[in-house]
Protein backbone atom coordinates (compact mmCIF):
# COMPACT_ATOMS: atom_id res chain seq x y z
CA UNK A 1 0.00 0.00 0.00
CA UNK A 2 2.69 2.45 0.97
CA UNK A 3 4.43 2.37 -2.39
CA UNK A 4 1.10 2.29 -4.25
CA UNK A 5 0.47 5.70 -2.76
CA UNK A 6 3.77 7.04 -3.92
CA UNK A 7 3.32 5.81 -7.46
CA UNK A 8 -0.18 7.18 -8.01
CA UNK A 9 -0.67 10.72 -9.04
CA UNK A 10 -3.16 13.11 -7.50
CA UNK A 11 -6.61 13.50 -9.04
CA UNK A 12 -8.22 16.08 -6.79
CA UNK A 13 -6.34 18.27 -4.37
CA UNK A 14 -7.35 20.79 -1.73
CA UNK A 15 -4.82 23.52 -0.94
CA UNK A 16 -5.62 25.63 2.09
CA UNK A 17 -9.25 25.11 1.21
CA UNK A 18 -12.06 26.46 3.41
CA UNK A 19 -15.84 26.39 3.13
CA UNK A 20 -18.05 28.88 4.93
CA UNK A 21 -21.75 28.91 5.63
CA UNK A 22 -22.23 32.66 5.94
CA UNK A 23 -19.80 33.52 8.78
CA UNK A 24 -19.33 29.99 10.01
CA UNK A 25 -16.25 28.11 8.78
CA UNK A 26 -17.33 24.51 8.18
CA UNK A 27 -14.12 23.32 6.51
CA UNK A 28 -10.93 24.95 7.78
CA UNK A 29 -7.91 25.39 5.49
CA UNK A 30 -7.73 21.77 4.48
CA UNK A 31 -4.80 20.35 2.50
CA UNK A 32 -5.68 16.99 1.02
CA UNK A 33 -4.68 15.14 -2.15
CA UNK A 34 -7.08 12.48 -3.37
CA UNK A 35 -5.10 9.92 -5.39
CA UNK A 36 -6.06 8.81 -8.87
CA UNK A 37 -8.01 5.59 -9.25
CA UNK A 38 -8.11 4.72 -5.56
CA UNK A 39 -10.84 4.76 -2.96
CA UNK A 40 -10.47 7.50 -0.39
CA UNK A 41 -12.67 7.38 2.68
CA UNK A 42 -13.49 10.46 4.69
CA UNK A 43 -14.48 9.75 8.26
CA UNK A 44 -15.30 11.78 11.32
CA UNK A 45 -18.10 12.51 13.75
CA UNK A 46 -21.31 14.18 12.46
CA UNK A 47 -20.95 17.85 11.78
CA UNK A 48 -17.19 17.62 11.26
CA UNK A 49 -17.40 19.06 7.74
CA UNK A 50 -16.71 15.82 5.88
CA UNK A 51 -19.90 16.01 3.78
CA UNK A 52 -19.37 19.70 3.18
CA UNK A 53 -15.87 18.99 1.92
CA UNK A 54 -17.10 16.23 -0.37
CA UNK A 55 -19.89 18.39 -1.78
CA UNK A 56 -17.38 21.14 -2.40
CA UNK A 57 -15.49 18.97 -4.89
CA UNK A 58 -18.29 19.04 -7.47
CA UNK A 59 -19.57 22.38 -6.21
CA UNK A 60 -22.90 21.07 -4.95
CA UNK A 61 -22.58 23.59 -2.14
CA UNK A 62 -23.22 26.33 -4.69
CA UNK A 63 -26.90 25.47 -4.30
CA UNK A 64 -26.88 26.41 -0.63
CA UNK A 65 -27.44 30.13 -0.14
CA UNK A 66 -24.70 31.90 1.76
CA UNK A 67 -22.09 29.22 1.12
CA UNK A 68 -18.68 30.38 -0.14
CA UNK A 69 -15.14 29.09 -0.25
CA UNK A 70 -11.57 30.19 0.17
CA UNK A 71 -8.27 28.66 -0.98
CA UNK A 72 -7.85 26.30 -3.90
CA UNK A 73 -9.49 23.03 -4.84
CA UNK A 74 -7.86 21.45 -7.87
CA UNK A 75 -9.39 18.78 -10.02
CA UNK A 76 -7.08 17.46 -12.70
CA UNK A 77 -4.83 20.42 -11.98
CA UNK A 78 -7.56 22.98 -12.60
CA UNK A 79 -9.12 25.10 -9.88
CA UNK A 80 -12.72 23.99 -9.48
CA UNK A 81 -13.64 27.43 -8.16
CA UNK A 82 -11.91 29.27 -10.99
CA UNK A 83 -13.86 31.80 -12.96
CA UNK A 84 -14.03 29.83 -16.19
CA UNK A 85 -15.29 26.58 -14.69
CA UNK A 86 -18.70 25.47 -15.83
CA UNK A 87 -20.45 23.59 -13.04
CA UNK A 88 -22.44 21.53 -15.54
CA UNK A 89 -19.23 20.28 -17.16
CA UNK A 90 -17.53 19.79 -13.81
CA UNK A 91 -20.39 17.74 -12.43
CA UNK A 92 -20.47 15.59 -15.52
CA UNK A 93 -16.85 14.71 -14.81
CA UNK A 94 -17.43 14.19 -11.11
CA UNK A 95 -20.45 12.03 -10.38
CA UNK A 96 -22.20 11.87 -7.04
CA UNK A 97 -24.27 9.43 -5.02
CA UNK A 98 -26.25 10.78 -2.08
CA UNK A 99 -27.05 9.68 1.41
CA UNK A 100 -30.69 8.98 0.63
CA UNK A 101 -31.45 7.20 -2.64
CA UNK A 102 -33.04 9.87 -4.84
CA UNK A 103 -34.24 8.27 -8.06
CA UNK A 104 -36.30 10.58 -10.26
CA UNK A 105 -40.02 9.79 -10.49
CA UNK A 106 -39.45 8.37 -13.97
CA UNK A 107 -38.90 4.94 -15.43
CA UNK A 108 -35.73 3.04 -14.59
CA UNK A 109 -34.53 3.50 -18.15
CA UNK A 110 -35.17 7.25 -18.13
CA UNK A 111 -33.36 7.59 -14.83
CA UNK A 112 -30.17 6.12 -16.25
CA UNK A 113 -30.55 7.81 -19.62
CA UNK A 114 -31.10 11.20 -17.96
CA UNK A 115 -27.46 12.27 -17.91
CA UNK A 116 -26.43 11.00 -21.37
CA UNK A 117 -29.46 12.69 -22.88
CA UNK A 118 -28.38 16.00 -21.40
CA UNK A 119 -24.79 15.84 -22.51
CA UNK A 120 -24.76 14.31 -25.93
CA UNK A 121 -26.77 13.30 -28.92
CA UNK A 122 -26.70 9.55 -28.59
CA UNK A 123 -28.69 7.42 -30.96
CA UNK A 124 -31.35 5.14 -29.55
CA UNK A 125 -29.06 2.12 -29.90
CA UNK A 126 -26.11 3.89 -28.28
CA UNK A 127 -28.33 5.05 -25.47
CA UNK A 128 -29.67 1.52 -24.91
CA UNK A 129 -26.12 0.28 -24.80
CA UNK A 130 -25.06 2.99 -22.37
CA UNK A 131 -28.00 2.23 -20.07
CA UNK A 132 -27.22 -1.47 -20.05
CA UNK A 133 -23.52 -0.86 -19.48
CA UNK A 134 -24.26 1.44 -16.55
CA UNK A 135 -26.78 -0.88 -14.98
CA UNK A 136 -24.35 -3.77 -15.34
CA UNK A 137 -21.69 -1.58 -13.81
CA UNK A 138 -23.94 -0.96 -10.83
CA UNK A 139 -24.87 -4.67 -10.61
CA UNK A 140 -28.51 -3.91 -11.14
CA UNK A 141 -29.00 -5.12 -14.71
CA UNK A 142 -30.08 -8.66 -13.87
CA UNK A 143 -32.73 -7.43 -11.46
CA UNK A 144 -34.33 -4.78 -13.65
CA UNK A 145 -33.70 -5.74 -17.26
CA UNK A 146 -37.30 -6.92 -17.66
CA UNK A 147 -38.87 -3.84 -16.19
CA UNK A 148 -36.83 -0.96 -17.50
CA UNK A 149 -40.01 0.99 -18.22
CA UNK A 150 -41.40 0.64 -14.71
CA UNK A 151 -41.30 3.61 -12.37
CA UNK A 152 -38.05 3.76 -10.43
CA UNK A 153 -39.93 4.70 -7.25
CA UNK A 154 -41.03 1.08 -7.02
CA UNK A 155 -37.48 -0.14 -6.34
CA UNK A 156 -36.29 -1.15 -2.89
CA UNK A 157 -33.89 1.14 -1.05
CA UNK A 158 -30.77 -0.83 -2.03
CA UNK A 159 -31.87 -1.16 -5.63
CA UNK A 160 -32.69 2.54 -5.76
CA UNK A 161 -29.24 3.41 -4.46
CA UNK A 162 -27.61 1.19 -7.08
CA UNK A 163 -29.83 2.86 -9.68
CA UNK A 164 -28.48 6.21 -8.52
CA UNK A 165 -24.98 4.81 -8.92
CA UNK A 166 -25.83 3.57 -12.42
CA UNK A 167 -27.26 6.99 -13.19
CA UNK A 168 -23.98 8.57 -12.14
CA UNK A 169 -21.91 6.04 -14.14
CA UNK A 170 -23.98 6.66 -17.27
CA UNK A 171 -22.36 10.04 -17.92
CA UNK A 172 -18.92 8.32 -17.73
CA UNK A 173 -17.46 10.42 -14.95
CA UNK A 174 -13.79 10.42 -13.96
CA UNK A 175 -14.45 10.58 -10.29
CA UNK A 176 -17.28 9.45 -8.02
CA UNK A 177 -18.31 11.15 -4.81
CA UNK A 178 -20.35 9.13 -2.36
CA UNK A 179 -21.97 10.89 0.55
CA UNK A 180 -22.71 8.21 3.16
CA UNK A 181 -24.16 6.00 0.42
CA UNK A 182 -25.25 3.21 2.75
CA UNK A 183 -26.55 5.07 5.77
CA UNK A 184 -30.17 4.61 4.68
CA UNK A 185 -29.77 0.94 3.74
CA UNK A 186 -30.07 -2.39 5.51
CA UNK A 187 -26.91 -4.51 6.08
CA UNK A 188 -27.46 -6.71 3.04
CA UNK A 189 -27.89 -3.78 0.67
CA UNK A 190 -24.92 -2.12 2.35
CA UNK A 191 -22.75 -5.12 1.61
CA UNK A 192 -23.69 -5.01 -2.07
CA UNK A 193 -22.80 -1.34 -2.34
CA UNK A 194 -19.47 -1.98 -0.63
CA UNK A 195 -18.79 -4.80 -3.06
CA UNK A 196 -19.52 -2.45 -5.90
CA UNK A 197 -17.16 0.20 -4.57
CA UNK A 198 -14.40 -2.38 -4.54
CA UNK A 199 -15.28 -3.46 -8.08
CA UNK A 200 -15.24 0.13 -9.33
CA UNK A 201 -11.88 0.83 -7.76
CA UNK A 202 -9.26 1.50 -10.39
CA UNK A 203 -11.70 2.58 -13.04
CA UNK A 204 -12.83 5.66 -11.13
CA UNK A 205 -11.33 7.79 -8.44
CA UNK A 206 -13.74 7.38 -5.56
CA UNK A 207 -14.21 9.52 -2.49
CA UNK A 208 -16.65 8.15 0.04
CA UNK A 209 -17.86 9.86 3.16
CA UNK A 210 -18.89 7.47 5.88
CA UNK A 211 -19.51 7.50 9.59
CA UNK A 212 -18.96 3.75 9.65
CA UNK A 213 -15.30 3.04 10.40
CA UNK A 214 -15.54 -0.64 9.50
CA UNK A 215 -16.84 0.37 6.13
CA UNK A 216 -13.93 2.74 5.63
CA UNK A 217 -11.54 0.02 6.63
CA UNK A 218 -13.17 -2.49 4.27
CA UNK A 219 -13.41 -0.46 1.09
CA UNK A 220 -10.80 2.27 1.08
CA UNK A 221 -7.13 2.63 0.24
CA UNK A 222 -6.70 5.97 1.92
CA UNK A 223 -8.58 7.47 4.85
CA UNK A 224 -8.93 11.07 5.93
CA UNK A 225 -10.13 11.91 9.42
CA UNK A 226 -11.97 15.19 9.84
CA UNK A 227 -12.74 16.76 13.17
CA UNK A 228 -14.52 20.08 13.66
CA UNK A 229 -13.74 21.22 10.15
CA UNK A 230 -10.04 20.35 10.36
CA UNK A 231 -8.31 17.57 8.54
CA UNK A 232 -6.68 15.82 11.48
CA UNK A 233 -4.96 12.99 9.71
CA UNK A 234 -4.71 11.59 6.22
CA UNK A 235 -2.96 8.28 5.65
CA UNK A 236 -3.19 4.88 4.06
CA UNK A 237 -6.22 3.16 5.57
CA UNK A 238 -4.25 0.35 7.15
CA UNK A 239 -1.87 2.77 8.82
CA UNK A 240 -4.56 5.10 10.05
CA UNK A 241 -6.53 2.36 11.73
CA UNK A 242 -3.58 0.45 13.17
CA UNK A 243 -1.11 3.14 14.13
CA UNK A 244 -2.72 6.57 14.10
CA UNK A 245 -0.28 9.43 14.51
CA UNK A 246 -2.71 11.83 16.15
CA UNK A 247 -4.27 11.48 19.57
CA UNK A 248 -7.69 12.67 18.26
CA UNK A 249 -7.69 10.00 15.56
CA UNK A 250 -6.92 7.35 18.08
CA UNK A 251 -9.68 8.51 20.39
CA UNK A 252 -12.13 8.44 17.52
CA UNK A 253 -11.26 5.05 16.09
CA UNK A 254 -11.19 3.46 19.49
CA UNK A 255 -14.69 4.80 20.05
CA UNK A 256 -14.07 7.35 22.81
CA UNK A 257 -16.31 9.86 21.04
CA UNK A 258 -18.26 10.44 17.84
Amino acid at each position, binding site marked *: MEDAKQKTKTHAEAKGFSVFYRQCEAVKRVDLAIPFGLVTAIIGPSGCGKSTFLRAI*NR*MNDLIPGCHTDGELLFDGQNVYGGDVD*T*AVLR*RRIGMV*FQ*KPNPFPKSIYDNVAYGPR*LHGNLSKAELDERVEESLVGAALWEEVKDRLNKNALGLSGGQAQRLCLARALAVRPEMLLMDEPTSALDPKATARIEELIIQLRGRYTIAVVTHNMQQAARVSDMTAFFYEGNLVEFAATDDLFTKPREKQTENYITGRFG
Partner: protein
Amino acid sequence: MILSSGEQTRRKLLSLAGRSFLFAVTSAAALAVLAIIFFIARDALPFFRASGVGEFFFSKAWYPAHEPPQFGAAAIFAGSFLVTGAAVVLAVPPGIFAALCMSDILPFKVSQVLKPVIEMLAAIPSVVYGFFALTVVAPFLQDSGRWLPGNIEIVSGVNALTASVILGVMALPTIVSVSEDALQAAGRELREGSYALGATRAETLVNVVIPASMSGICSAVLLGIMRALGETMVVWMASGNAAQIPKPWYNLLQPVRTLTATIAGDMGEADQMTGSAHYHVLFAMGFCLLLFSFVCNLAGEWMVARQRKRLRGG
Protein backbone atom coordinates in the same frame (compact mmCIF):
# COMPACT_ATOMS: atom_id res chain seq x y z
CA MET B 1 -59.40 5.94 41.51
CA ILE B 2 -59.76 8.63 44.09
CA LEU B 3 -62.97 9.94 42.56
CA SER B 4 -66.24 8.50 43.67
CA SER B 5 -68.09 6.51 41.06
CA GLY B 6 -70.84 9.14 40.88
CA GLU B 7 -68.30 11.83 40.13
CA GLN B 8 -66.76 9.62 37.49
CA THR B 9 -70.06 9.01 35.74
CA ARG B 10 -70.81 12.68 35.82
CA ARG B 11 -67.46 13.46 34.22
CA LYS B 12 -67.93 10.85 31.56
CA LEU B 13 -71.37 12.15 30.73
CA LEU B 14 -70.07 15.70 30.55
CA SER B 15 -67.27 14.67 28.27
CA LEU B 16 -69.67 12.78 26.06
CA ALA B 17 -72.03 15.76 25.91
CA GLY B 18 -69.15 18.04 25.02
CA ARG B 19 -67.94 15.74 22.32
CA SER B 20 -71.44 15.46 20.88
CA PHE B 21 -71.80 19.21 20.94
CA LEU B 22 -68.53 19.64 19.04
CA PHE B 23 -69.56 16.99 16.56
CA ALA B 24 -72.96 18.59 16.03
CA VAL B 25 -71.52 22.04 15.40
CA THR B 26 -68.84 20.71 13.08
CA SER B 27 -71.35 18.68 11.15
CA ALA B 28 -73.61 21.69 10.81
CA ALA B 29 -70.72 23.71 9.40
CA ALA B 30 -69.60 20.97 7.06
CA LEU B 31 -73.03 19.93 5.96
CA ALA B 32 -73.86 23.49 4.94
CA VAL B 33 -72.54 22.50 1.56
CA LEU B 34 -75.23 19.82 1.31
CA ALA B 35 -77.84 22.42 2.23
CA ILE B 36 -76.51 24.60 -0.55
CA ILE B 37 -76.81 21.79 -3.07
CA PHE B 38 -80.29 20.95 -1.83
CA PHE B 39 -81.69 24.45 -1.95
CA ILE B 40 -80.13 25.37 -5.27
CA ALA B 41 -81.41 22.11 -6.76
CA ARG B 42 -84.84 22.65 -5.23
CA ASP B 43 -85.23 25.99 -6.94
CA ALA B 44 -83.62 24.77 -10.16
CA LEU B 45 -85.88 21.74 -10.53
CA PRO B 46 -89.08 23.57 -11.44
CA PHE B 47 -87.29 25.00 -14.44
CA PHE B 48 -85.95 21.67 -15.68
CA ARG B 49 -89.34 20.05 -15.05
CA ALA B 50 -91.17 22.74 -17.01
CA SER B 51 -88.78 23.33 -19.89
CA GLY B 52 -86.58 20.26 -20.01
CA VAL B 53 -82.90 20.44 -20.68
CA GLY B 54 -82.84 20.60 -24.48
CA GLU B 55 -83.56 24.28 -24.94
CA PHE B 56 -81.46 25.30 -21.95
CA PHE B 57 -78.28 23.61 -23.09
CA PHE B 58 -78.59 23.71 -26.87
CA SER B 59 -80.48 26.82 -27.89
CA LYS B 60 -78.82 30.18 -28.20
CA ALA B 61 -82.09 32.12 -27.87
CA TRP B 62 -81.95 33.88 -24.51
CA TYR B 63 -85.07 36.06 -24.36
CA PRO B 64 -86.29 35.83 -20.77
CA ALA B 65 -88.50 38.89 -21.16
CA HIS B 66 -90.39 37.72 -24.26
CA GLU B 67 -93.84 36.25 -24.19
CA PRO B 68 -93.44 33.30 -24.06
CA PRO B 69 -89.91 33.60 -22.65
CA GLN B 70 -87.04 31.69 -24.25
CA PHE B 71 -84.32 30.34 -22.03
CA GLY B 72 -81.64 29.06 -24.38
CA ALA B 73 -78.40 29.33 -22.43
CA ALA B 74 -75.95 27.77 -24.91
CA ALA B 75 -74.37 31.13 -25.68
CA ILE B 76 -74.05 31.91 -21.99
CA PHE B 77 -72.36 28.60 -21.27
CA ALA B 78 -70.08 29.24 -24.23
CA GLY B 79 -69.32 32.71 -22.87
CA SER B 80 -68.39 31.32 -19.46
CA PHE B 81 -66.11 28.69 -20.97
CA LEU B 82 -64.53 31.09 -23.44
CA VAL B 83 -63.68 33.68 -20.83
CA THR B 84 -62.48 31.09 -18.33
CA GLY B 85 -60.43 29.26 -20.94
CA ALA B 86 -58.78 32.43 -22.15
CA ALA B 87 -58.07 33.54 -18.59
CA VAL B 88 -56.41 30.23 -17.77
CA VAL B 89 -54.37 30.25 -20.98
CA LEU B 90 -53.19 33.74 -20.11
CA ALA B 91 -52.50 32.98 -16.46
CA VAL B 92 -50.91 29.54 -16.48
CA PRO B 93 -47.57 30.27 -18.19
CA PRO B 94 -46.70 33.34 -16.12
CA GLY B 95 -48.14 31.64 -13.04
CA ILE B 96 -45.91 28.61 -13.34
CA PHE B 97 -42.88 30.68 -14.29
CA ALA B 98 -43.46 32.91 -11.29
CA ALA B 99 -43.81 29.85 -9.04
CA LEU B 100 -40.55 28.43 -10.42
CA CYS B 101 -38.86 31.75 -9.95
CA MET B 102 -39.98 31.96 -6.34
CA SER B 103 -39.13 28.40 -5.46
CA ASP B 104 -35.85 27.90 -7.35
CA ILE B 105 -34.45 31.06 -8.84
CA LEU B 106 -34.84 33.93 -6.42
CA PRO B 107 -32.99 33.97 -3.12
CA PHE B 108 -35.21 32.98 -0.22
CA LYS B 109 -35.32 36.49 1.19
CA VAL B 110 -36.50 38.03 -2.06
CA SER B 111 -39.25 35.49 -2.54
CA GLN B 112 -40.38 36.12 1.03
CA VAL B 113 -40.73 39.77 0.11
CA LEU B 114 -42.71 38.84 -3.00
CA LYS B 115 -45.23 36.75 -1.07
CA PRO B 116 -47.17 39.81 0.11
CA VAL B 117 -47.37 40.95 -3.52
CA ILE B 118 -49.19 37.73 -4.34
CA GLU B 119 -51.33 38.02 -1.24
CA MET B 120 -52.28 41.55 -2.19
CA LEU B 121 -53.23 40.48 -5.71
CA ALA B 122 -55.44 37.83 -4.12
CA ALA B 123 -56.91 40.17 -1.55
CA ILE B 124 -58.10 42.96 -3.83
CA PRO B 125 -61.89 42.61 -3.96
CA SER B 126 -63.31 41.44 -7.25
CA VAL B 127 -65.51 44.50 -7.61
CA VAL B 128 -62.38 46.65 -7.50
CA TYR B 129 -60.87 44.55 -10.28
CA GLY B 130 -64.10 45.06 -12.19
CA PHE B 131 -63.92 48.79 -11.63
CA PHE B 132 -60.29 48.77 -12.76
CA ALA B 133 -61.27 46.82 -15.87
CA LEU B 134 -64.00 49.29 -16.66
CA THR B 135 -62.10 52.51 -16.04
CA VAL B 136 -58.52 51.61 -16.96
CA VAL B 137 -58.25 48.43 -19.03
CA ALA B 138 -61.27 48.90 -21.30
CA PRO B 139 -60.35 52.42 -22.50
CA PHE B 140 -56.72 51.32 -22.83
CA LEU B 141 -57.73 48.34 -24.96
CA GLN B 142 -60.06 50.42 -27.07
CA ASP B 143 -57.29 52.89 -27.83
CA SER B 144 -54.73 50.21 -28.47
CA GLY B 145 -56.67 48.73 -31.38
CA ARG B 146 -55.03 51.30 -33.62
CA TRP B 147 -51.54 50.13 -32.75
CA LEU B 148 -52.24 46.48 -33.39
CA PRO B 149 -51.24 45.01 -36.74
CA GLY B 150 -54.09 45.38 -39.21
CA ASN B 151 -55.48 48.46 -37.50
CA ILE B 152 -58.25 46.53 -35.79
CA GLU B 153 -61.12 48.67 -34.72
CA ILE B 154 -62.14 47.61 -31.25
CA VAL B 155 -65.75 48.61 -30.98
CA SER B 156 -65.90 48.42 -27.23
CA GLY B 157 -63.21 47.95 -24.63
CA VAL B 158 -65.73 45.98 -22.62
CA ASN B 159 -65.36 42.53 -24.13
CA ALA B 160 -64.28 38.96 -23.55
CA LEU B 161 -60.59 39.85 -23.69
CA THR B 162 -60.77 42.50 -20.98
CA ALA B 163 -62.66 40.12 -18.72
CA SER B 164 -60.20 37.31 -19.48
CA VAL B 165 -57.14 39.41 -18.71
CA ILE B 166 -58.51 40.46 -15.36
CA LEU B 167 -59.76 36.97 -14.53
CA GLY B 168 -56.30 35.71 -15.41
CA VAL B 169 -54.74 38.12 -12.95
CA MET B 170 -57.23 37.06 -10.30
CA ALA B 171 -56.45 33.39 -10.89
CA LEU B 172 -52.71 34.08 -10.80
CA PRO B 173 -52.20 34.17 -7.01
CA THR B 174 -53.92 30.80 -6.62
CA ILE B 175 -51.88 29.26 -9.41
CA VAL B 176 -48.61 30.71 -8.15
CA SER B 177 -48.99 29.81 -4.50
CA VAL B 178 -50.37 26.30 -5.01
CA SER B 179 -47.77 25.50 -7.70
CA GLU B 180 -45.01 26.89 -5.54
CA ASP B 181 -46.04 24.62 -2.69
CA ALA B 182 -46.03 21.68 -5.08
CA LEU B 183 -42.59 22.61 -6.41
CA GLN B 184 -41.20 22.97 -2.90
CA ALA B 185 -42.64 19.60 -2.02
CA ALA B 186 -40.63 17.95 -4.79
CA GLY B 187 -37.72 18.23 -2.42
CA ARG B 188 -34.04 19.08 -2.40
CA GLU B 189 -32.79 15.52 -2.95
CA LEU B 190 -34.40 15.29 -6.36
CA ARG B 191 -32.92 18.60 -7.43
CA GLU B 192 -29.46 17.64 -6.18
CA GLY B 193 -29.68 14.35 -8.04
CA SER B 194 -30.20 16.20 -11.26
CA TYR B 195 -27.63 18.92 -10.63
CA ALA B 196 -25.06 16.30 -9.72
CA LEU B 197 -25.42 14.81 -13.20
CA GLY B 198 -24.44 18.13 -14.72
CA ALA B 199 -27.91 19.43 -15.54
CA THR B 200 -28.48 23.17 -15.67
CA ARG B 201 -31.19 24.76 -13.56
CA ALA B 202 -33.64 24.91 -16.45
CA GLU B 203 -33.01 21.25 -17.29
CA THR B 204 -33.43 20.24 -13.68
CA LEU B 205 -36.69 22.13 -13.37
CA VAL B 206 -38.17 21.02 -16.68
CA ASN B 207 -37.06 17.40 -16.63
CA VAL B 208 -37.28 16.50 -12.97
CA VAL B 209 -38.93 19.03 -10.71
CA ILE B 210 -41.94 19.91 -12.85
CA PRO B 211 -42.81 16.29 -13.71
CA ALA B 212 -42.44 15.37 -10.04
CA SER B 213 -44.86 18.11 -8.98
CA MET B 214 -47.18 17.80 -11.95
CA SER B 215 -50.21 16.76 -9.92
CA GLY B 216 -49.82 19.74 -7.64
CA ILE B 217 -49.44 22.07 -10.59
CA CYS B 218 -52.52 20.57 -12.22
CA SER B 219 -54.55 21.07 -9.09
CA ALA B 220 -53.26 24.65 -9.00
CA VAL B 221 -54.56 25.13 -12.52
CA LEU B 222 -57.87 23.53 -11.56
CA LEU B 223 -58.22 25.89 -8.64
CA GLY B 224 -57.44 28.74 -10.99
CA ILE B 225 -60.16 27.53 -13.35
CA MET B 226 -62.59 27.40 -10.46
CA ARG B 227 -61.72 30.90 -9.42
CA ALA B 228 -62.19 32.23 -12.96
CA LEU B 229 -65.38 30.30 -13.66
CA GLY B 230 -67.04 31.32 -10.41
CA GLU B 231 -66.01 34.95 -10.53
CA THR B 232 -68.94 37.28 -10.92
CA MET B 233 -68.22 40.96 -10.62
CA VAL B 234 -65.44 41.25 -13.16
CA VAL B 235 -67.29 39.46 -15.92
CA TRP B 236 -70.47 41.29 -15.08
CA MET B 237 -68.74 44.63 -15.38
CA ALA B 238 -66.20 43.97 -18.11
CA SER B 239 -67.38 41.24 -20.47
CA GLY B 240 -70.05 43.25 -22.27
CA ASN B 241 -72.98 41.01 -21.27
CA ALA B 242 -74.15 40.16 -24.78
CA ALA B 243 -75.68 36.69 -24.88
CA GLN B 244 -73.97 35.64 -28.10
CA ILE B 245 -71.28 33.30 -29.30
CA PRO B 246 -68.51 35.39 -30.88
CA LYS B 247 -67.88 34.89 -34.59
CA PRO B 248 -65.44 33.23 -35.04
CA TRP B 249 -65.78 31.61 -31.64
CA TYR B 250 -62.28 32.60 -30.57
CA ASN B 251 -62.78 36.29 -31.28
CA LEU B 252 -62.16 37.62 -27.82
CA LEU B 253 -62.71 41.20 -28.90
CA GLN B 254 -66.46 40.67 -28.95
CA PRO B 255 -68.66 40.98 -25.90
CA VAL B 256 -69.93 37.81 -24.26
CA ARG B 257 -72.09 36.96 -21.32
CA THR B 258 -71.33 34.44 -18.60
CA LEU B 259 -73.39 32.30 -16.22
CA THR B 260 -72.32 34.22 -13.15
CA ALA B 261 -73.02 37.60 -14.70
CA THR B 262 -76.42 36.43 -15.87
CA ILE B 263 -77.35 35.23 -12.41
CA ALA B 264 -76.20 38.43 -10.77
CA GLY B 265 -77.64 40.71 -13.42
CA ASP B 266 -80.99 39.06 -13.99
CA MET B 267 -81.95 38.24 -10.43
CA GLY B 268 -82.93 41.85 -9.93
CA GLU B 269 -85.42 41.62 -12.79
CA ALA B 270 -86.73 38.19 -11.87
CA ASP B 271 -89.36 38.01 -9.20
CA GLN B 272 -87.35 37.05 -6.17
CA MET B 273 -90.17 36.10 -3.87
CA THR B 274 -92.79 34.14 -5.71
CA GLY B 275 -90.50 32.41 -8.15
CA SER B 276 -91.12 33.02 -11.82
CA ALA B 277 -89.65 30.89 -14.59
CA HIS B 278 -86.89 33.47 -14.87
CA TYR B 279 -86.09 33.03 -11.17
CA HIS B 280 -85.83 29.28 -11.55
CA VAL B 281 -83.68 29.38 -14.67
CA LEU B 282 -81.11 31.40 -12.76
CA PHE B 283 -81.02 28.72 -10.11
CA ALA B 284 -80.56 26.16 -12.87
CA MET B 285 -77.48 28.11 -13.93
CA GLY B 286 -76.30 28.27 -10.35
CA PHE B 287 -76.75 24.52 -10.11
CA CYS B 288 -74.59 24.01 -13.21
CA LEU B 289 -71.88 26.22 -11.73
CA LEU B 290 -72.06 24.21 -8.56
CA LEU B 291 -71.64 21.00 -10.54
CA PHE B 292 -68.62 22.37 -12.39
CA SER B 293 -66.98 23.39 -9.15
CA PHE B 294 -67.61 19.91 -7.69
CA VAL B 295 -66.04 18.25 -10.70
CA CYS B 296 -63.01 20.52 -10.47
CA ASN B 297 -62.77 19.96 -6.73
CA LEU B 298 -62.95 16.18 -7.04
CA ALA B 299 -60.41 16.17 -9.84
CA GLY B 300 -58.13 18.36 -7.72
CA GLU B 301 -58.40 16.13 -4.66
CA TRP B 302 -57.83 13.06 -6.79
CA MET B 303 -54.65 14.58 -8.20
CA VAL B 304 -53.33 15.57 -4.81
CA ALA B 305 -53.97 12.04 -3.57
CA ARG B 306 -52.22 10.60 -6.61
CA GLN B 307 -49.24 12.88 -6.04
CA ARG B 308 -48.95 11.72 -2.46
CA LYS B 309 -49.15 8.11 -3.53
CA ARG B 310 -46.57 8.54 -6.26
CA LEU B 311 -44.06 10.28 -4.06
CA ARG B 312 -44.43 7.55 -1.49
CA GLY B 313 -43.54 5.11 -4.22
CA GLY B 314 -45.68 2.45 -5.81
